[in-house]
């Protein structure tokens, strides 16, 4: 490698790579590994099954074959109950999951963590209306999610504080351990419940409304074309320096926002309203990561019968897992990471893919994603399912793949020539 002639462009790219590695990556990685962020991510992962079950009714009532769709149409209301009681209660499940996760992070009792978080969240997002003895459950949908995250952090920090400062009722010797522990959390739990009650009911401060004011601009901003672009550029820059970018952008900073977007899209689709958001998790896996970051699937085809043994091997290794959006063999095998020649098409793929889909969606040519799909859903199937069966999305993805093939082709050939030369040497 050392003997190879290195052009100025390549040297500059190398310097640029080092710069990204040194200054752009560390803060994002630190943020992603920060313990509350990690706990929030784990808490979300645990409730994904309910998000998926909740979206089955959406798929059934939107089947592409009219005769099949008509079959389920009479049961739409009943099916939507399943959605409402699973997916649409996402805030409640998150409170349970987060409470346990935050408690675990501090080595405290997880059941108590869940109970106290749920109780405080209920006070904050849907206090009881005693006149009709009812709870307004919209607070337990995606609308209350950010409040619930904040409540869970306050609750966990306070429980930890109480534990460290020994803020408990001490039982005299001879009281069985089980009884002692049940009283152990009495004081911190009471203080927390009273605190949130006082803030919400006595002072009348509505955290959800307050957060709406703060977070709404953020939600709006990240759902614009440049918000999407910033996210895509960061994601791909990290991958270019060999760092798993998705875990610090899509699954890190953006995840709660992406979940909010798709949940609001789902809710809108049930009510027959226009879908408010474009940028969702399926958007990422349908338009930015077809077969993994950088939409590298076309490379498998280009290098399938390559004269370079390495690239041929990479293509053969990468195709089967690429179908499920995993492409480490290409990123590290070809490689794309730290490869100045592949940098240009790699970055272009994300920019072109995201902007192509963004503007097609805003122009109502394709449907925005409103059915949450797992990130490993294969290409062509993902755009179909996530858009509730919009064939235009599938056609658009095929068109995008052709465009990406053309973008990748010349660069892939230059790199191939390099590799063949190296292998001969």
């Amino acid at each position, binding site marked *: 490698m050392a003997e190879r002639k290195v052009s100025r462009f390549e040297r500059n790219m190398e310097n640029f790579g080092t710069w990204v590695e040194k200054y752009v990556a560390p803060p994002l990685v630190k943020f992603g590994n920060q313990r509350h962020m990690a706990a929030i991510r784990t808490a979300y992962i645990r409730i994904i099954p309910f998000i998926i079950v909740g979206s089955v009714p959406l798929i059934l009532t939107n089947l592409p074959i009219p005769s099949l769709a008509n079959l389920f149409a009479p049961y739409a209301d009943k099916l939507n109950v399943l959605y409402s009681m699973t997916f649409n209660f996402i805030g409640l499940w998150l409170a349970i999951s987060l409470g346990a996760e935050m408690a675990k992070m501090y080595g405290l009792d997880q059941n108590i963590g869940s109970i106290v978080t749920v109780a405080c969240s209920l006070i904050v997002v849907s206090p009881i209306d005693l006149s009709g003895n009812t709870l307004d459950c919209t607070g337990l949908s995606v609308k209350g999610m950010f409040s619930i995250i904040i409540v869970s952090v306050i609750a966990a920090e306070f429980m930890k504080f109480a534990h460290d400062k020994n803020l408990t009722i001490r039982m005299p010797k001879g009281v069985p351990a089980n009884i002692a522990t049940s009283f152990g959390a009495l004081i911190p739990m009471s203080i927390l419940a009273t605190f949130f009650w006082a803030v919400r009911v006595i002072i009348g401060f509505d955290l959800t409304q307050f957060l709406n004011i703060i977070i709404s601009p953020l939600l709006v901003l990240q759902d614009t074309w440049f918000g999407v672009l910033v996210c895509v550029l960061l994601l791909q820059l990290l991958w270019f320096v060999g760092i798993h970018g998705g*875990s610090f952008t899509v699954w890190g900073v953006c995840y709660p926002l992406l979940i909010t977007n798709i949940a609001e899209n789902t809710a809108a689709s049930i009510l027959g309203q226009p879908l408010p958001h474009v940028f969702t998790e399926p958007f990422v896996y349908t338009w930015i990561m077809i077969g993994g970051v950088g939409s590298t699937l076309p490379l498998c085809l280009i290098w399938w019968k390559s004269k370079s043994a390495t690239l041929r091997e990479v293509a053969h290794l990468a195709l089967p897992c690429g179908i499920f959006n995993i492409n480490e063999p290409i990123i*590290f095998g070809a490689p794309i990471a730290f490869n100045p020649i592949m940098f240009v098409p790699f970055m272009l793929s994300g920019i072109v893919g995201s902007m192509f889909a963004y503007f097609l969606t805003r122009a109502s040519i394709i449907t925005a994603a409103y059915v949450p799909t797992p990130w490993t859903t294969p290409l062509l199937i993902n755009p179909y399912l996530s858009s509730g069966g919009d064939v235009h999305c599938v056609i658009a993805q095929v068109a995008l793949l052709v465009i990406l093939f053309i973008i990748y082709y010349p660069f892939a050939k230059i790199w191939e020539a390099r590799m063949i030369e190296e292998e001969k040497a």
Partner: protein
Amino acid sequence: MEGKIKIMVLCASGMSSGLVVDSIIEHAPEYGVEVDVHCSPSLRYRELDYNGLDIILIAPQVKSSTGDIMEYIKGLGLDIPYMNIQMREYGLVKGGAILKQALEVLEQNKK
């Protein structure tokens, strides 16, 4: 080395490292060792069970988290050697080469 060598391969969500795990198992007989390998998601490193591990292999895409992860494990009172898997070997799923280096790390640690 006596008995099975217990190896944990860490990648972001425990997906791509599955390929590497299979390849290590396939190549283990060539090195005359018995291995017990599994992959785990580094994104959830605070929840994993590290007890009884002989070595931790870290995938290149999560290399930047190595410090955080190893510090956490040290905090648990465990002293486990680790190794960062080379980019190309990970990409080309060279389980044999990866295992060979891991054995070298283990050998160095014994001294």
